[in-house]
């Protein structure tokens, strides 16, 4: 923290990430620091009588959580001065009925008026609100027309609504409306025992099932003050890197496809499929779903499977590099991806955007490095940061990351420790405990916080990296042509399910 005096010296919970109870004065000081940029917002959630905010301090490579007791179900709005908190505050109201005093936009976000109840996370019962029509932001001017898209999109992708206001072919404003795939994950967590809840965590966003399961397991392990066996930690990293590889290959190909270059789409698709088949060979599931559990992993890697994976790496990397060469040599493809969907560096910093979206616009943050967790502290890898901020830069960051994944997979296989793969959780899980974890998924940093009482979840909060990426997609499409939206959208590939919860 830049101003250590602003926090009491006595946190409620200590290592590895402390949580402080603060008053409104300190709450406002924290917002000051978010506004001036010395802190980035990492998450905003509530329990019945208090609101929690997690912040990332870049200079100290540290995350802290502050908690403010609610006054009559209200708290001073963060978004009134720091816009990245806006959708979080709107969602928080929908979920818990907690009011952000001064919030500049009080339209609902996740609650579309379709549930049988209001404020599902609130204590006690509430009278159901009558749904009002959702009003999109006004766009005025001669010749401006609207193009509504979704929730069902043309491709095989997740649902969400995009409202374009265009002048001819040029987009004046894009407004997103999300929440269509809200499954009530946070409510489902409540009361579940920590073991069975892992299944839900692994299904918050299916493309990041490993990252979510890992974040959940680490948060539980922090709460119980245990660590998974060393071999399990390494196997988890192996799965996480395979997940990154599969998604990067698939998405680089998909970006090419959206620029009408289907040859590369087909070839990158082959690589992706091979990764998934190898993942199944190694861990028994093509996406490694339900393999990571609190305490370790449920499936061990056999020497045969490890050998098959290792033998695949070198020829696959050569093939990947050849495909990258084709991408780089193809002027007509570059013509589509360069200078398209430009994301400003100042916005990336303000919104604390992680993942390749942030790193393609100059924000050097990768949780594996900045908040190093095992076994990444024992592995050698580079984090690529570019400044161009366009579709091409986002593709290139991912290309560079794939190269690093090949290296990481080799290191993981070479130095894989032997021994147990899972520890039994302590029998007596009595008392209140809190845990937190941050994990670098393929899309960016996933934040997970949980509160356990007697072995059952009281609260589990998961913040997808997309929460801070979606608003920048709205911004970056401004001035582009409508036809370039699929390209921009794919270059972000934000999660709907992870965001909607």
């Amino acid at each position, binding site marked *: 923290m830049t101003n250590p005096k602003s926090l009491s010296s006595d946190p409620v919970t200590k290592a590895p990430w402390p949580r402080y109870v603060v008053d409104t004065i300190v709450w406002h000081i924290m917002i000051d620091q978010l506004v001036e940029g010395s802190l980035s917002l990492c998450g905003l959630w509530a329990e019945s009588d208090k609101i929690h905010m997690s912040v990332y301090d870049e200079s100290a490579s540290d995350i802290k959580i502050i908690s403010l007791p609610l006054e009559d179900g209200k708290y001073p709005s963060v978004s009134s001065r720091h816009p990245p908190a806006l959708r979080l505050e709107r969602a928080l109201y929908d979920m818990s009925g907690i009011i952000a005093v001064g919030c500049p936009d009080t339209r609902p976000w996740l609650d579309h008026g379709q549930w049988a*109840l209001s404020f599902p996370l609130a204590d006690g019962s509430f009278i159901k609100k009558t749904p009002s029509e959702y009003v999109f932001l006004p766009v005025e001017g001669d010749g401006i027309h609207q193009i509504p898209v979704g*929730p069902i999109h*043309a491709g*095989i*992708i997740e649902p969400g609504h995009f409202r374009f206001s265009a002048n001819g072919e040029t987009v004046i404003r894009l407004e997103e409306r999300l929440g269509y795939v809200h499954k009530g994950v946070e*409510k489902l967590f409540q009361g579940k025992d920590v073991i069975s809840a892992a299944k839900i965590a692994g*299904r918050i966003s*299916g493309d990041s099932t490993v990252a979510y399961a890992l974040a959940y397991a680490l948060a539980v392990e922090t709460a119980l003050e245990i660590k998974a066996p060393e071999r399990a930690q390494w196997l988890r990293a192996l799965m996480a890197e395979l997940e990154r590889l599969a998604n990067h290959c698939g998405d680089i190909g998909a970006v090419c496809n959206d620029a009408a270059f289907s040859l590369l789409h087909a070839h990158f698709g082959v690589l992706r499929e091979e990764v998934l088949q190898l993942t199944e060979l190694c861990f028994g599931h093509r996406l490694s779903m339900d393999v990571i559990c609190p305490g370790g992993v449920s499936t061990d890697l056999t020497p045969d499977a490890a050998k098959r994976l290792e033998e695949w790496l070198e020829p696959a990397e050569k093939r990947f590099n050849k495909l990258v060469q084709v991408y780089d040599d193809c002027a007509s493809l570059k013509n589509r991806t360069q200078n398209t969907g430009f994301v400003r560096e100042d916005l990336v910093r303000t919104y604390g955007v992680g993942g390749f979206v942030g790193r393609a616009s100059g924000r050097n943050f990768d949780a594996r490095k900045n908040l190093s967790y095992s076994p990444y502290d024992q592995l050698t890898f580079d984090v690529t940061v570019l400044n161009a901020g366009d579709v091409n830069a986002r593709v290139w960051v991912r290309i560079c990351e794939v190269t690093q994944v090949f290296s990481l997979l080799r290191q993981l296989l070479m130095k894989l420790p032997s021994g147990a793969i899972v520890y039994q959780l302590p029998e007596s899980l009595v008392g209140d405990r809190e845990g937190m974890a941050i994990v670098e998924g393929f899309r960016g940093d996933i934040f997970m916080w949980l509160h356990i009482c007697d072995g059952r979840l009281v609260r589990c909060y998961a913040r997808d990296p997309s929460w801070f990426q979606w608003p920048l997609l709205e911004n970056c499409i401004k001035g582009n042509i409508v036809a370039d939206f699929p390209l921009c959208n794919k270059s972000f590939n934000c999660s*709907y399910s992870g965001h909607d919860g």
Partner: protein
Amino acid sequence: MNSLFLQSFLKTPLTIKAPDPDEAALRELAEALDLRAREVLSHSISIREIDAGSCNGCELEIHALQNSFYDLDRFGIKFVASPKHADVLLVTGPVTHNMKFALQRAYDVTPDPKWVVAVGDCAWNGGVFRESYACVGAVSSVIPVDLHIRGCPPKPIDLLKGLLALLEVASRPKIK
């Protein structure tokens, strides 16, 4: 790029041999499909995929159906952009309340005759989300379903077997 083309011509295809249609799917479909289905579906199928609240896992595997290994196109099965162009709706997810209306609308605008394939354990009975206030549960509780392909998510090979069963049953006399 030229060398990539050349290599592709010289190499044997990656595409797998067509699997046998899924037996369980054949049984479910034998009951569900009528004569009209056989007339329409025995030629080719146009599918509109609808995510009704999936975690995106099923979508990944449905996507995989189109890669060089499974190559769905060779069976005359293709994905289309609008339900108005579709014979079959491929629905995933535990049907969130926020998507229920859109799913119903998509079903209504799909021209008759039409069939619905529910993909994944969530579409079967809501899966891990079935107790949620935000989910309806089984797809069949919202629109009529002709075939279920289970799995979390179902592997592409299982999706392929299910869809081939749809073609197979459609092209043979109805079992009563």
